[in-house]
């Protein structure tokens, strides 16, 4: 029996644009489990990012509740949510928004120090993570203006993991990368998932989706279906076929 990390009850989100109310998320009841690599797929405009922002406490739902470890987070204030995020969540965005006046190491530390004051331990962990994503000590001293997009995305992953979050949220982390550097990033995420890290990732791309063990398909703000793939194995043809069939069924 898997442990529930996050669950939603009747989660709805609507925006009013020019007077008209647009229902982007409709009555979503969802449970996310510890240790899972959950992938959210769906057409453009289906509400994937909106769901991710709601789950990660970056945005508040219009209706319904979200609980993390059986604690309701959907009624926290914006500063309360910020504290929740810094304690429990890590983020990898499509764009990385590194702070350009700081070295890569300092970028990571500044995210770590916001939650944890043990600078020595943080530096050790940052070195470990940097090594795991393949960024050398030389590169760690560089500034964001001096590195490639793939390197930036991997720094983003290090920054997301520095506080050992219970869950990492990633919104199209490979969206802006070419296939080679995208692969590096996916390998990194998979590696961390194998050590028990829970991950929720939004993607458009089948090659990325294949990494997850649980695929959710979102359509018009509701979860249309889901598919379980089991533990990721490299060059697993069956896995690929199963995912293709699922997506076909969903109308991908």
């Amino acid at each position: 029996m898997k442990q529930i990390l996050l669950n939603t009850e009747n989660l709805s989100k609507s925006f009013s644009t020019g007077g008209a109310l647009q229902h982007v998320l409709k009555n979503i009841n969802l449970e996310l489990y510890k240790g899972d690599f959950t992938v959210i797929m769906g057409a453009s405009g289906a509400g994937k990012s909106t769901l991710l922002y709601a789950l990660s406490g970056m945005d508040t739902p219009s209706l319904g509740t979200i609980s993390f470890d059986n604690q309701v987070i959907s009624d926290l204030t914006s500063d309360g949510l910020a504290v929740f995020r810094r304690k429990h969540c890590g983020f990898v965005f499509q764009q990385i928004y590194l702070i350009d006046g700081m070295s890569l190491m300092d970028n990571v530390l500044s995210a770590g120090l916001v939650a944890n004051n043990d600078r020595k331990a943080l530096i050790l962990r940052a070195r470990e993570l940097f090594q795991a994503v393949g960024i050398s000590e030389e590169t760690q001293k560089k500034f964001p203006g001096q590195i490639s997009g793939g390197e930036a995305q991997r720094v983003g992953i290090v920054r997301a993991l520095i506080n050992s979050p219970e869950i990492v949220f990633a919104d199209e982390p490979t969206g802006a990368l070419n296939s080679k550097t995208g692969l590096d990033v996916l390998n990194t995420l998979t590696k961390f998932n194998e050590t028990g890290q829970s991950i929720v990732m939004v993607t458009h791309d089948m090659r990325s989706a294949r990494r997850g063990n649980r695929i959710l398909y979102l359509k018009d703000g509701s979860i249309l279906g889901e598919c379980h793939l089991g533990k990721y194995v490299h060059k697993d043809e069956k896995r690929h076929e199963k995912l293709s069939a699922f997506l076909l069924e969903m109308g991908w």
Partner: protein
Amino acid sequence: MGKNFLLIRSNLRKTKGQTASILALILLSAFMLNIWLMLAMDYKQNFDRYHNRLNAEHVAFAINGDSDKMKPFLSETLEKDKRTDSFFIDRCLFMVGSFDYNGGEVNMEFIILEKQAALTRPIGKTELIENSRYTSGIYLPMIYKTGDIDIGKPIDIMIGNQTINYTVCGFFNNLMAGSHNCGMCTLLLTEDKYQELKSIGCAPEAAFVSVKINDKTEGEDFEATLKNALSAKYPNARMRSTSYSLVSSSRYISQMICSAVVSAMAFFVLLIALVVIASGIINYIQENMEKLGALKAIGYTSRQLTCSLLFQFSSIALIASSVGAALSYCLFPAINDMMISQTGIPYKIYFLPAPFFITLAIIIGTVAFAVWLPSRKIRDIDPVAALRGGIQTHSFKRNHIPLEGTQIPLQPALALKASLSGIRQNIIVCITMLVLSLIVVFSALMVKNVIFDITPFLNLIVGETADSCINITADAEDRFLKDMAKDKRIEKIYLYNSLEINHIGGTSLTATLCDDFSKVNNQMVCFKGRFPKYDNEIAIAAKYAKENNLEIGDEIALSVGGRQAGYLISGFTQITNNLGKDCLLTREGYQKLGTLQSLSSISIWRTM
């Protein structure tokens, strides 16, 4: 703390120039603030410290006559008054006189005391600052020590109608009568010289009375009632008095002016620093909307982001203002020398914690406010909108000077576009430049008026500076004026006297008489109404009028030695000498009260 440090270091890396200018501005401002606070908070206190040490009086007065005979009445009058704390009655020689000083002339009422007696008075003590082996001669207030007036050197002192040569034996300090701005000035003579002057007879004997009262703020009222009592008893005796508030404020005029000027400049500079800081923050937030949003997304609260800015600028302010305040101690000795040459009261510089910490508090407080105000904008940054790229980092609300529709050539059109789209920054730069140039002009004028050409400054505080000033006895006036009328070099000439009269129902006033006020250079002295023209008119100081609810057109009664006459108020003057207890009368007007016996001054302006 650590995350603040990282954020701050990254901010500083990007804004080195701005940080340097903020540092410099705050340093300058702290420098001046500390000087101002030292002058304002401690400098005048020094007067009170001295006052205590010399057990100085709150009201001092001299009245011509035999002190032994007057003593019973004086004691009785003083003892009767509940405000009196203690008093001391002494004999002195009391006469107007003058001596050369610093290229000009000191001309005032001298209270001449025997040295030993002066040093041992229980109230209103005199303190010797410099003594010497000379045993026969004169001691002068320390303010008069110059190259020409120094120990061992001879000095000619005119007392009444006699010029007497003395050897300078030393210098002393006396709080209530130790300078030319106290209303009267003590001189000490050695025993032999005192007896000699007494026998010459040019300086009549007088009683010199020092009174301490319970509440020093009542000094002026006390002085007024005392004068009324004395002039009723001795209508013909010449009198002169002075009080704590008059002396303490007039000895510290330069300190007051200096601290006003310095504080104004300090606050100007601080204002610029604050504008630079606030505009820097507005800029920073605008340019980093997305990054700030991303920081919020990874868990920074708005308060943490604001705090890191507060922390950054407060540390800059703390460092710069400590250095600035510390540096002000380097300049303070020079200011102190300047001040002492006017107050005549020595001041020892020491570290003053209160001004120092108040300076830091003012600067850090205002800087924190200037940071906090614009950084409230951080609260409005929505992390989701930032991540979606939905925040506009610049407001391209308007396309200024559309190129398709303009006749302006490309280069100026682009320049205009750039300056219009950054209009906010440009306005701030404009304001900064404006305030800066204001300060520069202000300081340049101050320097010019106070250091290079002090005529306008002197006109401001002392009124008129003639080319020559001559004292003349009443009986020689007519002949002298006739002679002068023949002299082609003379542009204008007028007579004036300064004496005391009593306002019935008020206090005693210093009256300045002039034969014709239309000749006075600074016609602005009378800023409301006009100078007295006829013998029933009077102009009074606006301050005194306000305090006594007097209006132009009111009639007031004046008396001198028992004679009384009414006058119409024709105007208000800006004169604040003698704490505003001042009025102007025509010579004819005064003649209704008494005849002019003492010396008149004649001011002469030469044609150039």
